[in-house]
């Protein structure tokens, strides 16, 4: 396998370049000849985000307040920055940069990473590849620096702090080549290393790995831990990158010649849209998990209905039926002129052959359709499945989750525990009328009726979970009991006398046995 080669591109003056291209002037001419800064509004007033070269020469620095810069250079021009637009443009550039490699990733706020493993020969070598990149970006009017290295971290460091168009071959000694770079090349948040007196990457090796590890042992994020960053730089630990994959959200719509005001017409439109959506999804090989139905009214209102499905589906009648249930209360006003259906969450659903076996010919809905219908009418909290949760306390040992999601791995409950079939949502206090000297009640009252206990097993002691509960929580002694008519319950005593956590222990009934 060929070693990884990563191309890092740093657009050094990205925000200013974008502004300049939008103004339509060349670098250093026209509006760009004046000192100019891009600002962001903060709680303490406008702060400088980007500067052009004239402003830099006049003394404006990124990160200072605009008012401070104005004292140095009163003629400075301030223009509001556009970080969201910058990010969108960067995404477009990332897709465009895939001309040099099979995938590319964003490196916000002003960088790109492209995987150029085993593609350099198509451009005549890595030097020519870099020249091509340089030419292409310069032609578009962006100031940039680029570097190629075996890891993303090394490529980033070289692009920002190394010589221009640096290439780090995979057989080079990376540590030696990179040791002269400043510690800022590690992509750390804040200068955590300069306070330790470390200025170059090479000095990091003089401190000793153990000492560094101890100093930063509770910094889990890579951006805060220099050891992790150093290992990523040298390729000792992998660094996950999120490639930019252009993705189209399936969207179908109907512009209506006459605004519709009646439900049956809307149902017709909805059926058509569902049919179109199915075609769209089939083409992509996906099935819808979430659908947004937007209805634009002529008076400018938008009605949105959202549908979530338990499993990916491409069944038009199922979709129409579920969405139809959500359309009962909409107000069409003067009419709806545009209806749009969007699958904002789609999952892969390969085309499958219709099952023609006799068993599949049976009527009836599938489980996911059943769950969908119930959640649409009863709400998403109504249909759930009990799963185990790591706890000894009965009411906490069970969690509820959506019925079709996979069960979390948990230790199975002990087989020798005889647990009740049903558990009350909240344990109900019982009044003990007569207790035996052994400690368990002989007669108690629950919900206004007296029970005479015939048989008992217990106690099973469950200690409070001190890591979850308050310190005043008391232990519980559980008893399985059966009364004289055969009714079986699970009761417990909350605390024991003299445990110093409250008065006389109380009794509760928590479960009903079958």
């Amino acid at each position, binding site marked *: 396998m060929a070693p990884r080669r990563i191309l890092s591109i740093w657009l050094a003056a990205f925000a200013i370049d974008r502004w300049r291209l939008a103004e339509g002037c060349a670098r250093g001419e026209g509006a760009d000849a004046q000192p100019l800064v891009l600002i962001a509004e903060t709680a303490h007033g406008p702060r400088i985000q980007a500067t052009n070269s004239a402003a830099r020469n006049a003394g404006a620095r990124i990160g200072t307040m605009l008012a401070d810069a104005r004292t140095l250079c009163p003629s400075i021009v301030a223009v509001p920055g556009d970080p969201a637009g910058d990010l969108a443009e960067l995404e477009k550039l990332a897709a465009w940069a895939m001309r040099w490699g099979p995938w590319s990733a964003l490196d916000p706020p002003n960088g790109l990473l492209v995987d150029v493993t085993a593609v350099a020969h198509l451009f005549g070598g890595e030097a020519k590849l870099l020249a091509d990149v340089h030419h292409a970006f310069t032609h578009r009017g962006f100031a940039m620096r680029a570097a190629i290295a075996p890891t993303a971290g090394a490529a980033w460091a070289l692009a920002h702090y190394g010589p221009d168009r640096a290439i780090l071959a995979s057989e080079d000694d990376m540590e030696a080549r990179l040791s002269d770079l400043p510690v800022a090349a590690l992509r750390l948040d804040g200068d955590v290393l300069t306070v330790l007196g470390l200025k170059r990457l090479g000095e990091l090796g003089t401190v000793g790995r153990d000492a560094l590890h101890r100093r930063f042992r509770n910094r889990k994020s890579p951006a805060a831990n220099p050891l992790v960053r150093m290992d990523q730089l040298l390729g000792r630990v992998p660094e996950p990158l999120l490639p930019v994959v252009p993705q189209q959200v399936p969207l179908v719509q109907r512009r209506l010649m006459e605004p519709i005001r009646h439900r049956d017409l809307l149902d017709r439109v909805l059926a058509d849209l569902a049919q179109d959506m199915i075609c769209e999804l089939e083409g992509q090989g996906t099935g819808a998990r979430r659908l947004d139905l937007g209805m634009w009214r002529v008076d400018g209102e938008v009605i949105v209905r959202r549908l979530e499905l338990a499993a990916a589906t491409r069944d038009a009648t199922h979709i129409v039926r579920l969405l139809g249930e959500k359309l009962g209360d909409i107000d069409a006003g003067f009419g709806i002129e545009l209806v749009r259906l969007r699958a904002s969450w789609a999952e892969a659903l390969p085309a499958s052959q219709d099952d023609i076996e006799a068993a599949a010919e049976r009527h009836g809905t599938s489980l996911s359709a059943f769950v969908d219908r119930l959640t649409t009418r009863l709400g998403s909290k109504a249909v759930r499945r009990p799963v185990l949760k790591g706890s000894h306390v009965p009411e906490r040992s069970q969690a509820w989750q959506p019925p079709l999601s996979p069960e979390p791995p948990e230790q199975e409950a002990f087989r020798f525990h005889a647990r*009740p079939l049903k558990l009350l949502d909240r344990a109900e206090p019982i009044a003990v009328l007569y207790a035996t000297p052994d400690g368990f009640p002989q007669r108690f009252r629950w919900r206004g009726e007296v029970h005479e206990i015939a048989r008992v097993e217990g106690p099973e002691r469950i200690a409070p979970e001190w890591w979850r509960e308050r310190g005043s929580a008391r232990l519980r002694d559980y008893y399985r009991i059966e009364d004289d008519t055969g009714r079986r319950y699970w009761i417990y005593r909350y605390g024991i006398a003299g445990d110093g956590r409250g008065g006389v222990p109380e009794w509760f009934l928590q479960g009903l046995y079958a």
Partner: protein
Amino acid sequence: MIQDSLSTAAQLASDATSQRWQPGLDAVAQSEIFASGREGSGAGAALALALDAWRHREREEGEEAEDRRAVVWVQTRAAVKRGGRPFRAGLPQEIRHRLIHVLAEKDEDALFALEEAVRCRDVAFVIGEIVGSPRALDFTASRRLTLAAEKHGVPLTLVRLDGTRDLSSARQRWAVQAAPSARPKWNRQAPGAPAWQAELFRARKHPPGLWRLSEDAKALVAERETSLPARGEDTKARSHSDLAGVGEGRTKVPNGKSPSPGPVSSFGASVAILSPDGERVLG
């Protein structure tokens, strides 16, 4: 699997005289279980009966060896308040991992959920819990459920907590009450495997009768109790009477407050069953 609904009256009559109910029969489309909301016996017996029918169902051709279909348990909010929610650690081992619980705020929603559940082909059986006799559960609704269950072959067991025995199209109707359990072998003071006193007071194929149901390892055990005389005639007459007592014999007892002699003496023939080891049941 489900009874043929077109059997003639003569057939029904002959069935009725010949065939007593026993465990191991096929599931019926819809059965109802009346139980008190103060005990877990209704849900317990419903699960036991449904599981018994599920184990003995006829396997279709090409069916998988292990049935992995879900079990749906529908409860209204009122039923949860009265009897609690299913607790996974206490469920039978076979259905722990495939239970789907539906919590309905209203009785109408619960009926909707039940009907959708019996229409689903990926469901093994359905259990519903409804409190009292709500207006929504009239004969039409009950018939609707029965027909849907018959059509799709998914058995439905409806637990009616503190309900009255009103009109219903359920194929089997039971009244269930907790019974003293058999004493475990190793700890005779401990409660044993669950047992119920179950009265089948209306069934399509079987004559009514009284059983003591219990579960031993992996199977439902039914022992017939013979204490109630002339049960055929007065089933209708009693159908509006108090539900708390299963039979006349039990209703005479002052609700078990006096210790042992009451229920034991009134169930003369059943004493041997209630306490197989010859001990006094209560004490």
